[in-house]
């Protein structure tokens, strides 16, 4: 496991995303109301750049004519064919076990701990005053 500093917290405001490259992999960093999630940038269906898709909520219906909308901003919809992926798990809504995108664990850490710890962010200047998004790979 290597830890990578991928962004400062204020680089990815709530509802926004950032595409980063970590060890040769393109990974999208998403902020859902202050929580950070990361998924790979390749749709498992047909290979589109998934992280260019729209961020949407979940619409469901208990019966025709009755709609519920929930989990605003927690799904990523592929820019090509519209597969919906749960940003919290990487699983698709329609085929959660079969069609899923790799998701990565993120942590928010203070610059102070990063500078003092064993982590080197070679391409990313870390200052003690800021908070950082850290990805383990």
């Amino acid at each position, binding site marked *: 496991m290597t830890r990578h500093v991928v962004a400062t917290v204020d680089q990815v405001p709530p509802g926004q995303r950032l595409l980063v490259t970590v060890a040769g992999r393109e990974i999208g960093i998403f902020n859902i109301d202050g929580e950070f999630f990361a998924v790979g940038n390749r749709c498992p269906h*047909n*290979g*589109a750049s998934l992280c*260019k*898709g729209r961020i949407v909520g979940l619409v469901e219906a208990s019966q025709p004519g009755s709609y519920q909308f929930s989990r605003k901003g927690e799904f990523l919809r592929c*820019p090509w*064919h*519209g597969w919906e992926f749960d940003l919290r798990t990487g699983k698709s809504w329609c085929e959660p076990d079969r069609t899923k995108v790799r998701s990565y664990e993120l942590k928010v850490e203070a610059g102070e701990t990063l500078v003092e710890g064993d982590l080197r962010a070679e391409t990313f200047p870390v200052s003690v005053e800021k908070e950082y998004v850290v990805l383990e790979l």
Partner: protein
Amino acid sequence: MSIMDLDRKSPAKHRLQVIDCDIHPAMTSWKEIHPYLEKRWIDHLAVYGSHLRHAFSEALSHPRMSPDAARVDAYPEEGGPPGSSLDLMRKQHLDPNGVEVGMLIPLRWNPGSQRNLDFGAALTRAMNTWQVERWVKQDPRLRASVLVAQEDTDASVAEIDARGGDPNFTQILLLPRTDEPLGRRRYWPIFEAAVRNNLPITVHVGGTNGHPSTGGGWGSYYMEEHHMVAQAMQAVMASLVFEGVFERFPQLRVVIMEGGLGWIPSLSARMDKHWNRLRSEVPHVKRPPSEYVRQHVWFTTQPMEEPGSAAALLDLFDRIGWDRLLFATDYPHWDYDDPRYSFKANLTEAQRQQILYGNARRFYGFDK
């Protein structure tokens, strides 16, 4: 140097070689065709506008899955609708996907559905020239389709004869919902002109031409309408077969574009079954209907079927005929098929090459 090294230097297995039979170019605005449109019709467009045989002339009958029915990542940075930028088309599609030939299929602006037949015919002339000037001459990989205003047979024939022999054009484009079923005799002069000019008739999904999407009227949802395209294509096929079009024009070749694939074997089998019983009603249909389909009709692959098992997909290809399948992406539309990932089965290298490239190369005569 080992054998492995040599293998790595011949990456044929991974190099894509594609003929894409369905690319949708777009205009940024009507002004793009002004240079090719007679002055009288530029004025007409400014004063009266474009009016189709269905309401909401410039709108689609259903909301598409996404605006412009497009891939979300296909909007040019410089503005304009998806499909309007040749640079982006090259960067995003033609170059990385190894497209050696790409067929242009202009869908919007609907010259064949214009209420004013003379305007529709003028629009076909202008848009045909526009395809050559704005696209084919700018990128030699692209080819144009002859648009015709099919409800005006004389004008259609004149335009086909005008473009026939021009290597920039590879086919004649029609939409499935013509005023009468496509096999009816009013359209036969178009087929005759197609054969005379050695151009296939390509029927691409799209447009309503004033007809509801189903025999029972309009569906409520896009997803519903999206499945009805197969219904319209089945009507086209049955009409062409039972009207005797392929008996009358034995050289005619038809491409069914974007209509799906799963229904083809079942329609052929059903037509054969009923021909065994009802043949005497249509004595001009001399052979089992499936034979006409097998001999005269080709199918583009997009949107590729995903039947859930690789075996089912391979069986479907067996039943349609591997030599009848022409690869298409539908760029820049949302249900785009990527040449690398769209076939959910392990095709042999020869099978993959045949569908992605070889069939279309032979069919359109690029091997000559």
